[in-house]
C-alpha cells in the first residue's frame, strides 16, 4: 500500500500497518537498497567496457532492453488461437513453433520451442527444475513463482497438488505430463479450445489464452455471461 506519509486516515484504523502518531512511515526500500551482488558488479563492468570501447552505444542497450520487455504472452496466445481455427497451422506449430511463429511475423528467437498439446485425458505443464528456462520471446518475462524453488521442486514431485493450488483440479482420468526444460529446448502448452467458443474469431479466442494457460497451470475458460 503506498500513500502519503502525512496521510489522514479519516477515522479509519491502521488495519494493516502501524506507526506512531506524527511519525513518518518507514520508507519502502528502493531498488538500490538490496545488496550489490557479484553478478551485478560483473554486469556493470561489462556494460561499461562495451561502452568505453565503442562496441555498443547506450541507445542500443536501451532499445534491446525495451524490445525484451515488450514481449508478452499475447504472442503465444496468437499462435494458440490460430492453431484452434486452422488445423494445418496447428500441425505446423506442433512440428516447429519457431517457424510457425515466423508465419505470423513473430520472432521466437534462435532457441527451439516445442508446443505440447493438451487433449481430453492429457494435461501438460512446464517447468525448469534446474533454473528458470522459459520461452521469453513468446511469453515475455517469467512470473516470479515460475523461478521460485517451491514451484520448481514441487511441480515434478506433486504436480496435482501444485495445480490444485492454482485452482486447477484434475481428476484421475486426466494424465498429468510435466515437461522439465533441462536442455536447449523451451516449451509452450497448446491448451484445448474451450467449449462455447464456436464461431469465435482469432482475436476473441486469443484473449482467453493467458500466460498461465501457456505454462499449463491453468486452462482457458469462457467468462460466464
Amino acid at each position: 500500500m503506498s500513500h502519503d506519509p502525512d496521510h489522514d486516515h479519516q477515522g479509519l484504523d491502521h488495519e494493516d500497518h502501524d506507526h506512531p502518531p506524527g511519525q513518518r512511515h518507514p520508507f519502502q526500500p528502493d531498488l538500490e537498497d538490496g545488496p550489490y551482488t557479484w553478478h551485478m558488479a560483473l554486469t556493470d563492468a561489462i556494460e561499461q567496457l562495451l561502452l568505453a570501447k565503442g562496441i555498443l552505444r547506450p541507445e542500443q542497450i536501451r532499445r534491446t532492453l525495451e524490445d525484451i520487455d515488450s514481449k508478452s504472452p499475447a504472442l503465444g496466445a496468437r499462435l494458440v488461437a490460430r492453431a484452434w481455427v486452422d488445423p494445418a497451422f496447428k500441425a505446423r506449430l506442433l512440428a516447429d513453433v519457431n517457424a510457425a511463429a515466423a508465419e505470423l511475423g513473430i520472432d521466437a528467437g534462435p532457441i527451439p520451442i516445442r508446443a505440447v498439446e493438451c487433449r481430453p485425458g492429457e494435461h501438460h505443464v512446464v517447468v525448469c527444475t534446474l533454473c528458470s528456462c522459459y520461452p521469453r520471446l513468446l511469453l515475455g518475462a517469467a512470473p516470479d513463482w515460475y523461478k521460485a524453488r517451491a514451484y520448481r521442486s514441487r511441480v515434478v514431485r506433486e504436480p496435482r497438488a501444485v495445480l490444485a493450488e492454482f485452482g486447477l483440479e484434475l481428476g484421475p482420468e486426466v494424465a498429468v505430463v510435466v515437461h522439465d526444460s533441462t536442455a536447449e529446448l523451451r516449451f509452450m502448452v497448446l491448451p484445448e479450445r474451450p467449449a462455447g467458443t464456436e464461431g469465435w474469431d482469432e482475436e476473441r479466442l486469443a484473449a482467453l489464452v493467458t500466460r498461465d494457460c501457456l505454462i499449463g497451470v491453468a486452462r482457458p475458460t469462457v467468462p460466464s455471461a
Partner: protein
Amino acid sequence: MSPPRFRPGQPVRVKAWFPPGHCRTPFYTRGKRGRILDLVDVEPDPEERAYGRPGLPAVPVWRVVFDQHELWPDYRGPAQDRVVVGIFEPWLEPVEEAG
C-alpha cells in the same frame, strides 16, 4: 560426432553418476528408468561449456519419459502421470525390454 545410439520408445536408464561440476541431469532422474521419446538435437556438451570450453564433439540430447511412480515410489496419482526430461546421451544407458 557419433551417431545417436537410441530410438524412440526404447527403454533406458539414467546413470547414477554424481560427478562434481555443472551438469544438466536433474538428481531426481539419476538411476531411474524411462523411455526415449525423441531426439531433441545435437548440442555442445554443457558440462564442458560451463568451464568455458567448446564442448565438442556435440552430444545428442534425448527427451526421456519417466513414469511418476518410477521417479517417486510414494507418488500419489494415476499410473499414467509422467515427467518428460531432456537428457544428454552420455548419461543414458540402454536397458533390456521388460519381458
